[in-house]
């Protein structure tokens, strides 16, 4: 069960998503209506923590638990980041969830979000079908 540790990491992350309330539809509306600092605070702190962590990993050549060197693939630019980004942002404000929070909303008892998740899978599939035809 080499993947069991990722289940545990997911449990840790799921608890964080609920306790920071970033899965809340209300918090998302506040963020996009600029009426609360909460979401900006959470995401901003997470990004700063991530930047410092990645810098430390690079500076001190920190390795994985198995002793492999850590490699992070660079992100390639494509216009999809603009068009897809705008489309996802539109959906984010409607559902109050990005993909991670979809799973967390279901887990916290809003079981109907399973329908939203299925529709998101369908969206990914339609995108994949379009890409495959090219």
């Amino acid at each position: 069960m080499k993947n069991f540790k990722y289940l545990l990491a997911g449990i840790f992350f799921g608890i964080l998503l609920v306790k920071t309330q970033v899965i809340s539809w209300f918090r998302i509306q506040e963020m996009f209506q600029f009426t609360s600092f909460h979401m900006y605070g959470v995401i901003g702190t997470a990004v700063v923590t991530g930047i410092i962590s990645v810098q430390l990993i690079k500076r001190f050549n920190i390795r994985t638990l198995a002793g492999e060197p850590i490699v992070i693939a660079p992100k390639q630019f494509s216009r999809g980041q603009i068009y897809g980004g705008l489309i996802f942002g539109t959906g984010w404000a409607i559902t109050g969830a990005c993909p991670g929070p979809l799973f967390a909303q279901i887990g916290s008892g809003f079981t109907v979000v399973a329908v939203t998740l299925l529709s998101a899978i369908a969206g990914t599939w339609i995108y994949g079908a379009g890409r495959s035809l090219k």
Partner: protein
Amino acid sequence: MQLLRFLQQPWHWSAGGFLIGLTVPLLLILGNKTFGISSSLRHICAACFPAGLSFFKYDWKKEAWNLFFVAGILIGAFIATTLLHDPKDIQVAAATQARLATYGVRDFGALLPPEIFSWNNLFNWKGLVFFIIGGFLVGFGTRYAGGCTSGHSIMGLSNLQWPSLVATICFMAGGIFSANVILPLLFKWLHT
């Protein structure tokens, strides 16, 4: 018990944000995994409905860790809601409460408004908008953008990737437009 009560309190945004940020080095150190959640939707397609499409023709089993991670998110959210639940209502900003009330959203007692996110709405226009269309835009948009809030806004920005900054700006622009222009129109239409 003391610890449980401590964890049950509402968390400060800086504490939560710090721990979310630590997920980035945690996954890297656990096994060279780059944090990203929307890929799980692609792996589900590849595993369940590949339909011979080249976009889904890859060895998804190699990426199975991602599916374990999202299963964990579901379990973790359940634990947080049952064991670490804060009995107090979430404090929604007054200005947003006032605005949402004009849309007919008045119950601020849970993380999501029960007026929208209930099974009763599955087969009406609300369900079509908030579950079907909303979900579709999230799944289609994140794959088109090559990542979501976790893959671009947290992982990509952590690694100082400018394409991720472009993506994040577009996520925000789309969300701001949607929350302030599209949603008011949708609610108006739903209530007529």
